[in-house]
């Protein structure tokens, strides 16, 4: 294991998050067993009060997880100096089999806790705890993801050893024959269709986000398209947007974008993309969740607001892409 302050901080926060979620899961089971809204008994009042603690704690954990996702990638980039052949975060993540798995788990935790908080927020609008059982059943599903993430991260950092020989981003994301894995396939995507997909997809989700207030079907569609757009956005970053940032026709790395050399431009791409995707998924979720009488007004209103937020996120993402293409000295198309 490499004893590094940021690693200690990351491990500490992951285990803290896990402890919070596991405690909440235990509470969730108790709640599911003995919830009786009609009762004014002290036990019921205690349960209701504890739900406030769970909401507050999970809200703080989400903020922590979002911060730790950024710190994790940033730290991986910084630690690349420790590994033979590593030049950015890719090398560090590749230095152990658990590296990328941890990153994916962290992203999953981010989306899962964001969705749960939206559910929690909507539930709070109804006077009769309309979604309480669904919400706590969902919490039982979120908790293992958080625990898995902490486990993977721990395995990853324990497994990391300085001087490990790893491969740099060129190996993974180059479109040449030496590349390997999904990264290479993404990179091999032709720039022209990638751009069509990117801007076409962005147009669909921005428009979709603006009209999703009209009906549940639109909200569900926004969730589906928003999720797809997240993947399309990442693919487009790897296959074509990165080329414009680096102004090199063959450098496809999605992590070097975050480096200071490129003005941390990656953040302008990833933050709106994650925001847009999370909001779209949440809107879609609210479209699927059965509507209770006490939420007849609030649920569609929040779903519509989230859809508009997702439109904003995707629009900002598309604008950032456009801006970098316009600014770049690289010309891919005559």
């Amino acid at each position, binding site marked *: 294991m490499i004893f590094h302050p940021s690693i200690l901080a990351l491990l500490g926060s992951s285990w803290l998050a896990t402890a919070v979620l596991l405690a909440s899961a235990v509470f969730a089971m108790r709640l599911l067993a003995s919830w009786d809204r009609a009762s004014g*008994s002290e036990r019921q*009042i205690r349960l209701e*009060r504890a739900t406030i603690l769970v909401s507050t704690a999970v809200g703080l954990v989400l903020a922590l997880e979002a911060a730790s996702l950024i710190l994790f990638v940033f730290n991986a980039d910084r630690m690349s100096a420790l590994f033979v052949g590593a030049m950015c975060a890719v090398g560090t993540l590749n230095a152990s089999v658990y590296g990328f798995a941890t990153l994916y788990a962290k992203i999953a935790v981010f989306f899962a806790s964001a969705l749960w908080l939206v559910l929690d927020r909507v539930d709070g609008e109804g006077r009769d*705890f309309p979604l309480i059982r669904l919400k706590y059943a969902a919490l039982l599903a979120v908790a293992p993801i958080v625990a898995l993430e902490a486990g993977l991260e721990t395995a990853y950092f324990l497994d990391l050893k300085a001087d490990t020989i790893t491969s740099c981003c060129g190996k993974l994301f180059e479109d040449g024959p030496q590349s390997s894995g999904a990264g290479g396939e993404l990179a091999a995507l032709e720039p022209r269709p990638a751009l069509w997909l990117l801007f076409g997809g962005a147009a669909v989700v921005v428009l979709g986000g603006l009209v999703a207030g009209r009906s549940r079907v639109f909200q569900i569609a926004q969730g589906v398209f928003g999720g797809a757009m997240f993947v399309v956005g990442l693919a487009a970053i790897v296959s074509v947007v990165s080329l414009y940032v680096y102004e090199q026709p063959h450098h496809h790395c999605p992590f070097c974008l975050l480096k200071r050399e490129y003005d941390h431009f990656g953040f302008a791409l990833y933050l709106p993309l994650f925001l847009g995707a999370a909001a779209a998924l949440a809107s879609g979720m609210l479209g699927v969740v059965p509507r209770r009488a006490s939420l007849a007004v609030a649920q569609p209103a929040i779903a519509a607001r989230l859809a508009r937020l997702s439109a904003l996120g995707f629009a900002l993402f598309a604008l950032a892409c456009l801006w970098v293409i316009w600014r770049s000295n690289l010309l891919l198309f005559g």
Partner: protein
Amino acid sequence: MIELTEVTKVYGEGRPDRVEAVRGVDLTIADRAVTVLEGPSGSGKTTLLTLIGCLARPTMGRIRLDGEIVSGLPEKFLTEVRRRTFGFVFQKFNLIRGMTALDNVMLPAFPLGVPHARLKAHARELLEHFGVGDRAGLGVENLSGGEAQRVAIARALINDPAVVIADEPTASLDGARVEQFLAMAADLKAQGKTVIITSHDPRITRASVVDARVAMADGRIVEATP
């Protein structure tokens, strides 16, 4: 109109110190009137007042506020109902020490997000109305008993509630102050507010301004007039 149907409140359920503070109370409180709950201490009148004022939820039974059932609401919504419907004047006034009279009056409106300047002007107006405008900037620990009560009443009115609830308002006041309090109660009634008072002080319970009397003993209503 406030209607209570078979309302019961139990403290310490399942423990040896279990108390049934209120047992199966049926009661209707009329709008724009002064109602007094009377009875010795321990008779359950204060508990009943907390239930009427949505400060606590009944263990059993139903409370309707203008037709809407509020007894089963989660705390969050109960609070919402409470702050738009009720203003409280507590027995010991319960002003926050270390803050000025003006800040104390503004306090209930803080979570509502009223613009600061408008809120401040409104609080000043209320203090003026009750004749303590010149005390606005004073720390509440420097006020006399009578002044503190008027600040407490001003605070109860800041969110313009329909119902004002006063718990043992004369417990810490001398004779002249009692008259003043009754005058304020009449004033509130004239403004169209419903006033509910608990008291075992005959100067209050026999006062002419009182429209209805509810006598309690041992958690039950023993007499209600009219």
